[in-house]
């Protein structure tokens, strides 16, 4: 019996839907799962902390911790691989739940296996700058993260990262000439998205004692606070 056009079409649709369910190709389903993100970073990642992403952070450990903080507070597990000098107190103050934070300070030659195991089991994985990972290892980790819905926050460059955040400048308040103490700072971050087109510069008030916490993605108060750099990065 010959198949009718309708049944063939229905079968094709079903197969496509199955693929979409598995891989998540459509925009809507891919957008959906996000982890909580601190409101301070709304400007940096307006789309939220998406599961399955790789975020490369250059030049600021505090920013890495801030990315993981809200998710950890909400019950996610965090692993820090290859970060032997992570400030534990800073992590706690940023809001990371230390009971759900594990350090793998010196993975050595087993870096790929250790990071892979962490990506399998944890929600947010912080990767240190000097890990013995080849390009192929990195690609494998990224696809594993996409499959498991983990977020990789890598210190240093990462080819093919969804978002690259570079700390280009920071201004500290509170220090004088022999007096005062560090009180707060404004961190300027260059945000480059893989498919975002232009790079943006965002100033984030980190560590402020009384700094207002900005919510939402409304127009910033100071004009020029967020400005587009010409051309794609």
């Amino acid at each position: 019996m010959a198949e009718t056009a309708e049944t063939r079409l229905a079968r094709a649709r079903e197969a496509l839907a199955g693929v979409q369910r598995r891989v998540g190709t459509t925009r809507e389903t891919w957008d959906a799962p996000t982890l909580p993100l601190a409101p301070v970073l709304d400007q940096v990642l307006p789309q939220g902390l998406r599961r399955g992403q790789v975020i490369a952070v250059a030049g600021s450990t505090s920013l890495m911790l801030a990315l993981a903080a809200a998710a950890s507070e909400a019950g996610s597990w965090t692993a820090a691989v290859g970060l032997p000098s992570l400030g534990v107190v800073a992590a706690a103050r940023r809001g990371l739940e230390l009971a759900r934070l594990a350090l793998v300070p010196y993975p050595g030659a087993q870096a790929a296996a250790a990071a892979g195991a962490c990506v399998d089991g944890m929600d947010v994985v912080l990767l240190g700058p000097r890990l013995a990972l080849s390009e192929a290892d990195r690609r494998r980790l990224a696809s594993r993260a996409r499959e498991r819905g983990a977020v990789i926050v890598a210190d240093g460059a990462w080819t093919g990262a969804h978002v690259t955040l570079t700390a280009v400048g920071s201004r500290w308040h509170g220090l004088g000439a022999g007096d005062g103490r560090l009180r707060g700072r404004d961190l300027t971050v260059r945000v480059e998205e893989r498919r975002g087109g232009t790079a943006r510069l965002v100033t984030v008030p980190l560590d402020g004692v009384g700094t207002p916490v900005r919510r939402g993605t409304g127009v910033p108060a100071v004009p020029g606070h967020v400005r587009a750099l010409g051309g794609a990065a």
Partner: protein
Amino acid sequence: MSVVTVVRRAVLWVPDWPVVAAMTEAGLGADVPAAVLHGRGLVAVSAAARAAGVKRGSTRRLAQRACPELAILPHDEGRDSRLFESVAAAAEHAVSGVEISRPGLMIIPADGAARFHGSEEALAEALVTAVAEQAGVECAVGAADGLLAAVIAARSAELVPAGTSREYLAPAPIGALALAAMERVQREEVERLASVLTRLGIVTLGDLAALPFADILARFGPVGVWAHRLASGEDLAPPVLRRTEEDIAVEHVFEDPAERIEQLVHVAKEAAIALDRALLDAGMRCGRVRITARTEKGQDLERVWRTDVGTRAGAFARHMTDRVRWQLEGWLSGTAGSTTGDKGPEPSPLVSLGLVAEDVVPLGSEQAYLWGGVSGADSRAHRALERVQGLLGLEGVLAVAEQGGRSPRDRAHLAPWGQEAPPARAIAHPWPGRIPDPPPATVPPVARPALVLDAGGAPVAVSQRLAVSAPPTWVRLEADPSDERARAANRHPSSGHVGHVDGPVWDRPRPVESWAGPWPVSERWWSEDASRQAYLQVALRDGEGAVIAVLLAYGGGEWRLEAVYD
């Protein structure tokens, strides 16, 4: 408070137990005058010291004046109850069950035991003999109806005939009520009550028992009721008997001292399986496992490991095998304990291995988390970490906690994942001189060298009186090891070296934008690891617009990079 039938009790009393326990532990003979000091006064005095005129409650100086050769021992409630266990075990040779009401005092239901031994006199004799022989302690035994009468009878080693407790108690002073108070808080309450009653003219227990019950309740509340009941020779609760249970434990003694890990892998597996089977046979599961080992040199090593609920289903033995193996590897190589702060044991062959199950609960009644059970994500994360621990070994995965301390490094507490190690220092303590918040995000495990220079390029020093020799103008940090340019510049003759360079490779000097300090921190001056440092917070200009803030410490004439606020 319910009225219970009056139970005939025998009370075993060891006079001056705290001092007896302290002397046993200190290895002093019974004839040495000794006393236990707690706070400002003596809480217990040995018989020899009492004969020399030392009184309970007197100060150390008064006691030493009365008896110069008096041995003054520290107070330790833990030691008192620990050592009393051996007395209780000795008494259990004569009777089947005892209640330890406080260290030094034991209650035994007398009826059955007296029938077994023939009479109460025989029971008392059996008890005194058993305790003297097995535990080496002199004790007195008395018997009466009701708790208070029995306690008072024990002090004079009397046997009060049945039904005469009320008459026996009547002439006793009201202060004797405190003897039946078993806890310190209760004792204080009772002493307050006794002093009020004395002032009211009620000086004996007989006077108190003669008062109407309802009036006592109205005037003195529950404590009054308690006192009235006891003074009337009644009881408040039947004795609660101690029940000894065997630990669920396995022990393995090596035929030859084991010094290679290959010998141990098999033993670790067998011991873990044996413990698993012992737990299953008893229908129990455990929350923690204590791993103990004895080295050839006679050193006892032990560590406690958490085992989680999720691994119960058949995986317990495998889970435990890994932990035992890691722990033994650590002990054999002498690395265990390096992260927890205490010195690791000297590497030495092991002669025996033991596993003891702790936090034992019946199978199926495990306590889950306070809110909900173990979530899927939690057990997934635990499994992932266990896998990494399997790859990298015990110390490959660390659990972190915050602890008290002054420098950022001191405030982090690291311990191998899954191992029970409480933070060494309390956060709640004030920690004067602590580096103020915000805490730095990068704290190198070891402080790195740094150079602080003044405007002319000369090193800056901090004097004893915390004066900075010149305002810091330039700071040189260690260069990144992958920075070839810095390395090449360092090799260049213009940097002042010729040929091979020993010291650190310095990065280019960075100008100081602003700074604060010096903040002095002088820690542990009484001990070997004393440190005296001055801290400096410095903001450095790094390229255009970028500023890095660092925490520098000065001590022993050198600057070190303690942390980076990046």
